[in-house]
């Protein structure tokens, strides 16, 4: 009998306690943020714990290649664990005018094909580290949903090999587009 009433009492008090907590939360500030609203136009998550502007510093959401700097060393292709990078190079003629990457490395290979299949990418960022000219980078741009899978083939090389029309994917600079 004692147990019966103790049970009842425990039930009532614990339920009252829980209801107190939920009632208090009814009047506290909301933690979620509206995606694309007047208050949050940039579609960026405003973290409450990370100082403003620092959250995306190292974010790796989408690969981008500054193709002018690529020297065609294929290090990224080798290290990729899911084989999503595809590079073809041609030897540059000695007679061609010398080109240099941003850091001064001479470009000896002509990169005729630099494809990244973003639908395979596992965002591990392993390709970024070995790059000698830092031309392959991860950008914090994360909104790149497509309805057709072939749109995920990002073709960075300026000159593509002969075969038919390449898909009309604009490899626009994601940093400029979404870096805000």
């Amino acid at each position, binding site marked *: 009998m004692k147990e019966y009433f103790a049970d009842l009492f425990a039930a009532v008090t614990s339920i009252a306690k829980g209801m107190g907590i939920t009632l208090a939360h009814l009047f506290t500030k909301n933690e979620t943020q509206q995606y694309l609203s007047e208050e949050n136009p940039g579609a960026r998550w405003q973290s409450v714990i990370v100082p403003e502007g620092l959250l995306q510093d190292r974010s790796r959401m989408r690969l981008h290649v500054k193709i002018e700097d690529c020297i065609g060393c294929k290090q990224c292709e080798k290290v990729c664990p899911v084989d999503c990078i595809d590079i073809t190079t041609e030897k540059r003629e000695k007679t061609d005018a010398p080109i240099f990457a941003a850091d001064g490395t001479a470009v000896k290979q002509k990169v005729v094909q630099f*494809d990244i299949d973003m639908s395979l990418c596992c965002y591990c960022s392993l390709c970024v580290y070995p790059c000698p000219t830092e031309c392959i980078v991860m950008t914090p741009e994360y909104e790149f949903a497509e*309805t*057709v*899978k*072939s749109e995920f*083939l990002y073709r960075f090389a300026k000159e593509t090999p002969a075969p*038919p*029309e390449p*898909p009309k994917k604009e490899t626009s600079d994601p940093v400029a587009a979404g870096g805000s």
Partner: protein
Amino acid sequence: MSLDAAAVQQRIEAKFPGKITSAELEVTDPFLVIDNAAIVEVGTFLRDEPELAFDMLHCHSAVDYLELKEPEKARIEVVLHLTSLKHRHWIVLKVMLPRDNPKTPTLENIWPTANWHEREAYDLFGIEFEGHSDLRRIFLPEDWAGHPLRKDWEWPDEWHGIAVKPDEKFSQRAMEGENIGVGPFD
């Protein structure tokens, strides 16, 4: 009182002479190789002997050594990592099996956890555990062909009409102008 691998070896030798076929004590994780026929007795002894009390089989793996250069050394090893919660010591046991038709007695009556681990080894390596209560494939479909963690396993062509082999380079197809949809039905 914790024991190291050498002490454990001594005790097993004293009880079952000649059942340890070899031992490697100078490596990172010292291990003892136990005779396949005696593994159940040795296991029971290891679990029940108060001084040893290896009551937990915390990892059960199999390794396939194809050894193409020295075919006579080809083998499948079953590796048992045993821990004693009582004495806080641990030991690695190995059992060597032939690659053709590997068979070993089940350990599920000693450590019940071996049940699923042995199903896994059966599934991926094709090791037959004699006396196992429920030896079915655990990960792969019941009608899968072959045991994929064998080093000489070959990709089947298809499974119920589903292409199994890695797709031809996707970028090649996309480059040829093919519209590849998202999802399996596009």
